[in-house]
């Protein structure tokens, strides 16, 4: 192994190239208003069958109404505390133990999960998720429906703007950009939704006014 490492690096150094500076960063016009960002995010999500709701009341009321009798998965953060307000769901499970101890249940029994999101991107209609011990990675992936709460004040124009606004020098274990429900076009280039990840992605936008 060490031999191949040295061998490859030697071959790469065998022919030194003249380094050239990188071209200037391509910047599209920025500076969308908050209302424009919400509209763009919504339009782009809907174009790929993502559902977007400008949440008026609490998420628990919305969930009671739209996921009646469903089996909900919550993490162990703030949303889990609020979940005690839910009245109409059949069951609420908490993701509070390592996946190994309940993997088959996660894959077979959960109908819908709810998570927060780190930010959103207006231009591409993208949710940014930074999974944590309180909201693990598989929450936004395995259940057939994923509901994500997005703070409208955390909407950025695009990926480049988000990166420049935050310190990303230390990356988390996993960071995700999610733009709509799972989809494929592998058969005859025809779009079909819900192949492996969630069949439905619903963004509940809060602080939208």
């Amino acid at each position, binding site marked *: *192994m060490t031999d191949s*490492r040295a*061998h*490859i*690096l030697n*071959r*790469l150094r*065998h022919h030194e*190239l003249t380094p*050239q500076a*990188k*071209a*200037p*960063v*391509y910047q599209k016009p920025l500076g969308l208003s908050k209302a424009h960002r919400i509209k763009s995010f919504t339009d782009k999500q809907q174009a*790929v069958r993502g559902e977007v709701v400008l949440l008026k009341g609490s998420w628990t009321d919305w969930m009671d109404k739209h996921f009646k009798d469903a089996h909900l998965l919550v993490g162990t953060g703030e949303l889990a505390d609020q979940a005690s307000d839910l009245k109409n769901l059949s069951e609420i499970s908490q993701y*509070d133990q*390592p*996946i190994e101890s309940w993997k088959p249940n996660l894959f*077979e029994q959960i109908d819908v999960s709810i998570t927060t999101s780190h930010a959103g991107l207006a231009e*591409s*209609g*993208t949710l940014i998720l930074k999974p*944590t*011990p309180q909201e*693990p*990675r*598989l929450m936004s*992936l*395995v259940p057939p429906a994923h509901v994500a709460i997005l703070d409208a004040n955390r909407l950025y124009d*695009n*990926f*480049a703007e988000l*990166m*420049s606004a935050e310190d990303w*020098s*230390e*990356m988390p*274990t*996993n*960071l*995700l*950009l*999610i*733009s709509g*429900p*799972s*989809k*494929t*076009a*592998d*058969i*005859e*280039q*025809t779009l*079909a939704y*819900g*192949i*492996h*990840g969630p069949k439905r992605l619903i963004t509940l936008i809060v602080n939208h006014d």
Partner: protein
Amino acid sequence: MNQQQAFEQRIDEALHNAQLRQNFRSAMDGIRQRRAEQFPDEAQLQALREQVQSIRSYSLQNQAELLEKLETKLTENGIQVHWAANPEEANGIIADILKAADAKTVVKGKSMVSEETELNHYLEEQGLEVIESDLGEYIIQLAKEPPSHIVAPAIHKNRVEVAELFQNFHPELPYTENIDELTETARIILREKFAKADAGISGVNFAVAETGTLCLVENEGNGRLSTTAPELHIAITGIEKVIDKLTDIPPLLEILTKSATGQPITTYFNMISRPRQEGELDGPKAVHLVLLDNGRSRIRWDDELLDTLRCIRCGACMNHCPVYVHVGGHAYGSVYPGPIGLALEPQRLGLDKAGSLTSACSLCGACGEVCPVKIPLPKIINRLRAESVNNQESSTVSGKGTLRHTSEAWIWKLWSISYSSPSLHRLVSWAGTRLSGLLPKKLGAWTNYRSRPTPAKCTLHELVKSAGVAND
């Protein structure tokens, strides 16, 4: 059969398969249209191409340093890095990791590099169960075929062919030719595999040196499942995929998804920087990265051919190639088909093994125009074509000159002599017009698809003279 004859036979079969041609034609027309819609502003597109070309060139110029930086950062993050000079070594490394973890079943995300190493075959020989989980890859795994396109591997199959495959392998599930229902069938079959797999294997689209981050671009979620659900994740990628900074990602991602499938962004962009940390409840407990050379470092020795390595594997070149659209990916018989295959495979494998590929090009230039990282594909293909018949010392490509035919070389030699001497040229063209009756009806491959050219009754010189034009 030599490589040229084998290639021609595959092309012949593809051209006579009406269903295959129809499948490609309709798929390619759609994909080109969708790409074009994503780039309404020509000036913006060109600015973006300039920028990503420069990002990729910078990565290649500083490749050794960036790979060392990537290794250092990944190691700090807890991801184990392995270096493989060739496919055998890469496969061996992966098999050893799986064995040490006592893994028996593996789910795979899409990886063209693993096609290069024929990893599935290798692991299956070791007694492992390997399941391709990308829908297109799963379809061709059932059909025991290689991918026919680097982004849409089962693009050569239509819904009926897929329905029959699913029926053969899963007779317990209801037969359907409806694409939504076929998708649901695949979901049901593969979910069980994800839930039970011991390990996941994936490719990498970009490896960011600065932060030690492996980035995966996908729509289905199988890449995320393969890299999150099992306890072990092994990623494999070519050494050219390293990039310097996280801020290089937004333009690269944008131009990749728009060029590949005409989407403004894919459903998932998955950035992996660590294995599961203390307190985290899921994700693999161990993550490995295998960096494969397999001929790439030599490509870098030539300042022009080096551009081949900028490729971000979007497939736009094949989508826009008139040859690819007619013959499809399998006719090439190589891992990478289409224009990038013509440029890459002879360099990777040697002109003696894959030099014939360079003949599958009309030099129309479409690939060079759409390439998001501005690889001068027509120029590279033309050069490799010349090097396959010319044994120039300066060439760094192995197998140079091996496709040279003495008879062809003599024809060109005589051609060049006659064109450098006016009197000889006059004599030869005079003889050509007067003795045209002696030309055989069949002129080898040339007349397979064309009629034999008939020389005029007299030469252009004679015509001009008889018209009274003064000869300066």
